[in-house]
């Protein structure tokens, strides 16, 4: 890994290196769009097939926690964007502070997610573990509700995994920032990890209404 923004051997100029890194991250993010996309497709079909059960199941997940998490994650996107700005204008201390704030907000998100998952576990809404949505209802209703919860856990779980990876990347980034590695001439890791972080935020921006707000009226 580069230490002081040195030029890698395969590149001719720093500009080429920077452009390649940026394009590389964007192309990677496009693969992530299609990766999550497959689950959005599964969700779309299942929700359109079982709208009522999906509505009912959606009402049973904690809207307050979901809404708070949405605000927390968008705030973390703000602090991440601010850290990119700080690196661009050479404010190294502010950069570190914003990165730490981003990490804190991301951790809060994960903590709240943990609370939500625990709630679901206690209510027997975890498919494959101890699933039982409505003991009195028909087998079909329970099966369809299990579909909702399978998607809920698969989608938010994959999202949380991406957040955990993001948190790990942030920890590394904070370490590098504390060593003063980032300057206005060289801040590529901040930019790239920022792009990744914003993407993970965008996934949540769609997950929130689709999972939590199906039928709240």
């Amino acid at each position, binding site marked *: 890994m580069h230490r002081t923004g040195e030029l890698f051997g395969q590149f001719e100029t720093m*500009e080429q290196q*920077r*452009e390649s890194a*940026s*394009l590389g991250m*964007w*192309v990677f*993010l*496009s693969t992530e*769009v*299609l990766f999550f*996309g*497959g689950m*959005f*497709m599964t969700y*779309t*079909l299942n929700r*359109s097939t079982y709208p009522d059960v999906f509505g009912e199941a959606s009402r049973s997940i904690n*809207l307050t926690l979901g*809404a708070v998490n*949405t*605000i927390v994650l*968008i*705030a973390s*996107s*703000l602090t*991440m*964007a*601010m850290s*990119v*700005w700080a690196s*661009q*204008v050479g404010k190294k201390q502010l950069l570190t502070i914003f990165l730490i704030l981003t990490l804190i907000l991301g951790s809060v998100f994960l903590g709240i997610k943990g609370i939500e998952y625990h709630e679901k576990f206690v209510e027997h809404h975890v498919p494959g573990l101890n699933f039982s949505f409505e003991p009195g209802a028909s087998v079909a209703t329970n099966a369809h509700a299990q579909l909702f919860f399978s998607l809920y856990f698969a989608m938010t779980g994959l999202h949380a995994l991406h957040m955990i990876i993001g948190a790990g990347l942030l920890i590394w980034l904070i370490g590098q920032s504390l060593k003063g590695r980032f300057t206005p001439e060289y801040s590529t890791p901040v*930019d790239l990890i*920022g*792009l990744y972080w*914003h*993407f993970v*935020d*965008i996934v949540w*921006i*769609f997950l*929130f*209404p*689709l999972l939590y*707000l199906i*039928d*709240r*009226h």
Partner: protein
Amino acid sequence: MSEHHIVSPKIYIAIFVALMVCTILTVYAATVDLNQYFSGLNIIVALVIATLKASLVVLFFMHGKYSPKRTQLVIVCSVFWLAIMLFMTMSDYVTRLWS
């Protein structure tokens, strides 16, 4: 970023405020039965708001607005390809009962 365009914190904060407003709006809209006016209006509103939020993040937080054309092409293609998958698959299900 390669474009060296520095977006000012003021813009970031403005976008953040917009995102917060949209979040509150989408939660509120979900509590109102819009489906009585037009079937499926709730989900349409929810998706429009989410798309708006995502667009703000892409354009400003991710500097999409200031990125080279090829980056913008990558963004458009990802969305377009996802749309192909969603629309053409659903076209099978939606037309099953037509005949």
